[in-house]
């Protein structure tokens, strides 16, 4: 294997990590951009998606189980997100720091519940047969490079989900409402947009996408009660770097952070790359405090 294939291989790993980050951060970015809500229990939606996938596989078997698991993970976490929005988040509107603390409480309860139900060690999901192969690009410049099927699948999944969300926002009636509320909540409300419903729909969509991320994650790592915690901080950094409520920004930031981590880990170590990443984010903020894609606004106060 030549040097360039090694680099491309690692780049590929970085992109697949970035894909999971993107799926995890998408919901955060949407609900933070629209409602200014920080959902600390978002990581637990990944965890929940992972466990739901595991359950589907144990019910339906390895092959169809995973496909069913994807659907179950999306619907299950989306429903849970809707429940969370109605019972808790809606009450804390306009108090972002309090929402942060309350959802952290929810995340602790969910983690402990997972520990009581599935045990503290975590469960393994084996990839279905149709994903366990590798793609090799023989005959091209990159001879010798082989890409695990699961990683390729994760990247495709992220691309499809991103495309679907972009399509919903750009082309549907719900998307129109989302854009209106995002731009100017009071005016949208005055014109008859049901902002409560829009908030609910966006929040629930975001948690559903996080559930899909959990499904994807279960292919490459065991599902543990704390699996969400290990991704959530990075997902938040993606949101900060990407800018509020911008899909392009979130995509760019997820790619940046995923590839950065993957490459920094070859050069140094996991722990040092974490420190480097945080330093880079703080330095980045000195230049672009509002993220890669800053929303143009003449308002003095963020609403």
């Amino acid at each position, binding site marked *: 294997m030549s040097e360039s294939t090694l680099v491309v291989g690692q780049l590929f790993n970085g992109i697949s990590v970035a894909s999971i980050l993107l799926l995890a951060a998408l919901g955060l970015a949407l609900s*933070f951009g629209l409602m*200014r809500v*920080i959902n600390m229990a978002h990581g637990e939606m990944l965890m929940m998606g992972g466990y739901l996938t595991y359950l589907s596989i144990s019910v339906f078997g390895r092959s169809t189980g995973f496909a069913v698991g994807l659907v179950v993970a999306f619907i299950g976490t989306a429903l849970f997100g809707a429940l969370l929005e109605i019972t*808790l988040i809606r*009450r*804390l509107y*306009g*108090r*972002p*720091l*309090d*929402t*942060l*603390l*309350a959802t*952290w*409480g*929810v*995340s*602790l*309860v969910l*983690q*402990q519940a997972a*520990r*009581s139900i599935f045990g503290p060690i975590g469960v393994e999901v084996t990839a279905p047969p149709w994903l366990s192969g590798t793609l090799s690009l023989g005959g091209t410049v990159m001879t010798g490079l082989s890409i695990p099927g699961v990683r390729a699948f994760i990247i495709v999944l992220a691309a499809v989900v991103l495309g679907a969300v972009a399509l919903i926002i750009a082309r549907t009636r719900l998307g129109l409402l989302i854009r209106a509320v995002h731009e100017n909540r009071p005016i949208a409300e005055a014109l008859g947009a049901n902002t409560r419903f829009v908030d609910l729909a966006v929040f629930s969509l975001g948690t559903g996408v996080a559930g899909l991320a959990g499904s994807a994650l279960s292919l490459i790592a065991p599902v543990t009660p704390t699996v969400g*915690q290990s991704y959530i*901080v990075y997902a*938040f*950094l993606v*949101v*900060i770097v990407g800018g509020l409520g911008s899909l392009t920004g979130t995509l760019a930031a997820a790619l940046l952070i995923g590839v950065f981590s993957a490459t920094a880990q070859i050069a140094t*170590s*996991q*722990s*040092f790359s*974490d*420190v480097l*990443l*945080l330093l880079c*984010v*703080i330095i980045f*903020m*000195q230049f672009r*405090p509002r993220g890669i894609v800053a929303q143009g606004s003449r308002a*003095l*106060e963020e609403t």
Partner: protein
Amino acid sequence: MRRELGLVLLLAAAACAPLYLPSYELSLLGRFLALAVLAMGISLIWGTGGILSLGQGVFFGLGGYAIAMHLKLAGADPGAVPDFMQWSGLDALPWWWVPFRNPAFAIAAAFVVPGAAAAALAFLVFRRRVSGPYFAIITQALALAATTFIISQQQYTGGFNGLTGFKSAFGFALGDQSTQFGLYWATLAAVALTFVAVRALQGSLFGKVLLAVRDGENRVRFLGYDPLPFKVIAFAVAGVLAGLSGALVTLDLGVISPAMFGVVPSIEMVIWVAVGGRNSLLGAIVGTLVVNFGKDWISSVFPDLWLYVVGAVFVLVVTVAPQGIVGLMTSLRARSPRLGPATPPALVE
């Protein structure tokens, strides 16, 4: 006046605690009072300044390590490196460990290093007017990065196990009853001094501007103040208090390790203050004691229950009682006409 008298009586009762409390409860009380110093720092930045930090544990850890490094060097044979360095095959002391042989340097470092680190972070972030939830997330990332970094640098920091196994501290044998009492009184003095100092800070012009920054940062700008130094100084003060608290707890427990100040402990520190009442300095102390004694009791009786309880507390305190225990007391007093009305504090975000 009646209020001050009550506080003095409370302090006197606490000072006499070694006379009537059993040894185990006394050591818990001492440790939780040390944590209350940190909690008062959170009360200053969060209650007065509106700055939510999810990384106070980092400054706590810096203070703890500064003292622990000195104790480690004082306990090692002259000319030898501390035991954990020998285990990882290090035979020369790293240069940045050397000055910690000096006890005065270590004590000063326990204040200065966390304070300077907090000031630097606050300056870099607040300078670009990044605040609110963004700042909270950055401090949480800091807690994550700091703990993973310390764990990975085992040969220099003791790794996951941290620094432990001290025999004596500044000439006093640890574990002696007299040392325990002395440490308890020193902690109590630190709590009292911190209370008076932070109270004075809140009552000063500085405190008033800080409060104004919390309620309307841009309005403060229009009035001709730059909010930046106020936020940076407040955050640095909270950092110093966290460092002091870390140093005291390290002396008390005889250990400092990353598990004591990572992401989860750091956010728990915020909940102490939220439970007590974020706008009240006394509330910070009360909340720290209530939550920690509760944790000690629940995790010994029902070990699996603690996370459920603390999770529920997070949700309930925010939705039902945003002003915490102190807020509940105040509204109770406001309802009973005999005790006279008290103005309920304004709900703040």
